[in-house]
């Protein structure tokens, strides 16, 4: 994990220090009608022209001592910008998970317990349709329907004043996009469990269908979706960027876009590190959790 982070930060560092990107930074920091000489002298003065190794070493040393650098876009240290933005996104992600996971599991179980029925068909088409609609499509469609036509919600959010009215659409957009995938996985694993021997035995000994599903099938069917839910976090990160841009919710994703658009070197590096930590961390948790939930793996290892 440390190795991945090092390699990635090197790649990002190389890309942001390319000449055109540095020029963009200089223009953004001063004014847009700067001459080439002024750009050069500004870059020289602020130490962007020093050897690559020195600059990278300086940044790395800072990171190791807990200083993530200075954000040129927000004109304050990254250590102040990032936690605030991450907190806002945390609220968003929390509500997305709270709404997405139970409904996705419910859809998956309902359609997987009796494969091939009309209910299964309808729910399956629903989940395919939601996975096929990216956030920038569904978010805009929801805005058209619920904000412009019906007027129930607001199409713009505000991090400082989260209300039901302006927060529903971002959460809805994100959770509906992720729902389909989890539901499909749950359905697949549920329908596999329902055809297994022990469920048939439970049927044959005369247990009612409800208790077969709830007591026998469910526990085993939920192992696979658990990993899928955790592996959704990387996707949540990308989704967050798009949704935050559509609804102008100024969280982590918004900060990331701002950093990338303005070539804010330190903030961009910090954002990349955060996302790598999230991605690799969830992979680790999902591996451990999978072993915990599935006794067969636990015993073997």
């Amino acid at each position: 994990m440390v190795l991945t982070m090092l390699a990635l930060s090197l790649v990002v560092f190389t890309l942001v220090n390319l000449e055109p990107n540095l020029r963009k930074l200089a223009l953004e920091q001063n004014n847009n009608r700067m001459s080439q000489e002024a750009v050069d002298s500004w870059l020289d003065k602020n130490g962007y022209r020093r050897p690559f190794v020195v600059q990278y070493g300086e940044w790395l040393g800072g990171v190791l001592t807990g200083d993530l650098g200075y954000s040129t876009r927000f004109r304050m240290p990254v250590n102040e910008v990032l936690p605030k933005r991450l907190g806002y996104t945390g609220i968003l992600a929390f509500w997305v998970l709270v709404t997405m996971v139970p409904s996705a599991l419910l859809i998956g179980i309902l359609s997987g317990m009796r494969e091939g029925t009309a209910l299964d068909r309808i729910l399956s088409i629903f989940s395919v349709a939601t996975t096929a609609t990216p956030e920038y499509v569904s978010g805009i469609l929801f805005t058209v329907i619920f904000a412009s036509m019906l007027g129930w919600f607001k199409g713009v959010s505000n991090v400082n004043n989260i209300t039901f009215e302006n927060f529903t659409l971002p959460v809805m957009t994100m959770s509906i996009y992720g729902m389909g995938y989890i539901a499909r996985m749950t359905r697949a694993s549920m329908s596999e469990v329902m055809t297994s021997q022990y469920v048939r035995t439970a049927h044959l000994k005369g247990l009612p269908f409800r208790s077969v599903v709830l007591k026998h099938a469910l526990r085993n069917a939920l192992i696979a979706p658990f990993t899928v839910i955790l592996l959704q976090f990387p996707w949540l990160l990308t989704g967050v960027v798009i949704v935050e841009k559509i609804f102008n919710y100024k969280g982590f994703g918004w900060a990331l876009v701002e950093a990338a658009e303005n070539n804010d070197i330190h903030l961009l590096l910090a954002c990349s590190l955060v996302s790598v930590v999230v991605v690799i961390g969830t992979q680790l948790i999902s591996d451990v959790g999978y072993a915990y939930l599935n006794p067969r793996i636990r015993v073997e290892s």
Partner: protein
Amino acid sequence: METINFWELWGGVAYRFWPVWVGMAITYLLMRANRKHIGVFGHLLDSPVGVTGLMIVLFWLFTAVFADVVATFDPLEQFYRHRRKPPGMVELESMIPMYFGSDNLGRDLFSRMVYGSRFVLLIAPSATLVAFIVGITLGLPAGYKGGRTDSILSFIANMILSFPVIVLFYLLVTPGIRETALPNVMASVFFMFPIVFALTVLRSRFSERPGLLFPWSVIILILGGWLYSGVVFNSDPLGLISMDPNELNIFAAVVFASSPGVFRIVRGLTMDIKTRDYVAAAQTRGETPWYIMLWEILPNARGPLIVDACLRIGYTTILLGTLGFFGLGLAPESPDWGSMINQTRGFIRLVPTIVLPQTIALASFVLGLNLLADGLREESLKD
């Protein structure tokens, strides 16, 4: 302002698409007649889900092919008197209706949507194809040989996959990057793979028949070199093949973002298939590793790979839309669905229908690919 009514609007739209309907009908009938000979695509006709998906994909395919016939206006022509108009308004000079209304600069949304399919259906499948060849060429040896090759390649793949796609695009697809040689370098590496792949396929097949190996290799080198010079360096000696620097940049970035996924799938499939008996038989016969990988393992992995290709074309379409949505890479006036969504979304309050054609087009195409993949998976599991 002159408008047409609901029936005239949808009747007109249905009529404009006539070459598409004809094309879809002919394809369907041809497939129906030859269903015994086209493998899994023949079985596909038994599954309603698969047929629905196939029809949606064919619809957009033929729309892209016949865009010139279907579209009513030039996608770039701006009518200043008709900005942000709702659907069904008639353009006063030509008396042709603007079926889906017009955008913020007075361009006909219907024609832009139709032409937008061209960009997507050109870039998405070809980028997916290149990503597949890259993924297969690297994934086969990684899965088959394992060891150090595998750990290095897997490390790189996981690294790219753990990187948020948006940051990747912000770093790789900018006008600034186009000034440097980076997109060309990336493209030159990626487009090398198809040529190397084709040569390896030949060499492993005809290694004992130099009489066949040599002429085929020469043909591939000439053809590949011609395409390569045209696409990557824009220096095709015949001047037939060329690629816009913007598009090359996008192409390289999309291939870069999606080939690690293919790599992982191919690697997993290879590790599964290499334990089969026919692979052991080939090893005992003394076949070379590349022969086993390309002629024993790869054909047996084709089922999951075809399904994955359908899903991945859809995913690439979403990526292209994301690029357009963030205004990256493409010329601002280009009629691709992502850019159209980005440009019109600010006017939802004034004209709610202004974003509908392009959003529904993109969603329906991806949905079609997903349904097609579902149908293929269902039918290939039945055998």
